[in-house]
């Protein structure tokens, strides 16, 4: 993908709202207990829980953005929750999770998924959820096959969340970074 254009804000917001509503009502969301918190019309945070730690407090927050949605996948970042007392409904309150934090998952890379704490982007290092269902994957020199590419009309943010959930439920998931790399 070369220099993608940002989506029309009103259309992207409407599409995101529709897809979040459908996701919330889906069997897949109920199965995994995903909960959605709106930050603004273009951003939503989703709480995801690895299956093995369900009920034991293990969980992560994934911020999805519709800046390029849904011609392209959502921007995707594991984020830290706001400090106690802070306004949880502002996008800036949810900062990218540092790679040594409790909010960053440690995974042995899978053929179809990895999380990098400091990947080289054109504007400097940053977190990369490395999967063809995230926007960032396409601006970091990856070359998915035709069958792996995001397809508008077939994929929604559920595809992004499903891959994250499947990775966290896989034997390759080691735990949160602060526990694995104390």
């Amino acid at each position: 993908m070369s220099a993608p254009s940002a989506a029309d804000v009103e259309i992207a917001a409407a599409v995101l709202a529709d897809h979040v509503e459908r996701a919330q009502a889906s069997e897949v969301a109920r199965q995994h207990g995903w909960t959605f918190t709106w930050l603004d019309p273009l951003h939503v945070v989703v709480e995801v829980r690895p299956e093995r730690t369900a009920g034991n407090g293990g969980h992560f927050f994934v911020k999805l953005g519709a800046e390029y949605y849904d011609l392209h996948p959502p921007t995707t970042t594991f984020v830290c929750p706001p400090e106690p007392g802070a306004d949880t409904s502002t996008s800036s309150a949810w900062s990218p999770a540092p790679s040594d934090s409790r909010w960053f998952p440690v995974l042995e890379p899978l053929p179809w998924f990895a999380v990098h704490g400091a990947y080289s982007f054109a504007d400097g290092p940053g977190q990369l959820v490395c999967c063809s269902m995230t926007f960032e994957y396409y601006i970091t020199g990856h070359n998915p096959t035709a069958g792996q590419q995001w397809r508008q009309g077939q994929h929604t943010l559920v595809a992004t969340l499903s891959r994250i959930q499947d990775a966290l439920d896989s034997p390759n998931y080691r735990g949160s970074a602060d526990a694995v790399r104390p």
Partner: protein
Amino acid sequence: MTTAHGPVEDTSTKDRPGERTRIVTIDNRDNGDTIRLRREVSDTVESVIAAMYEEFRQSRDPEDRLMCRHNGQDVFQFAALTLEEYLRRGHCQDLHWAFVGGTGGA
């Protein structure tokens, strides 16, 4: 009940032993849709797969995966079996499958 891809079949009638039809439930993990297909037990798994792609309005890709939701077992490998044979051999007794398209990463 409908999905974004059209109507799905009535599920109000529960499956019963000896019944000649069964309901196959398939979650599409690419978009969150769930379809339910009532099929004769003499139908092949391949025919259910074909119906799934029709409902999803997609063509099959070699990188697609279709798994038993309960244990992750690949369903495509049993395409030649009838549903009756598939169940008799102990596979995926609740006939709840999960579809996911190809994914690149790492």
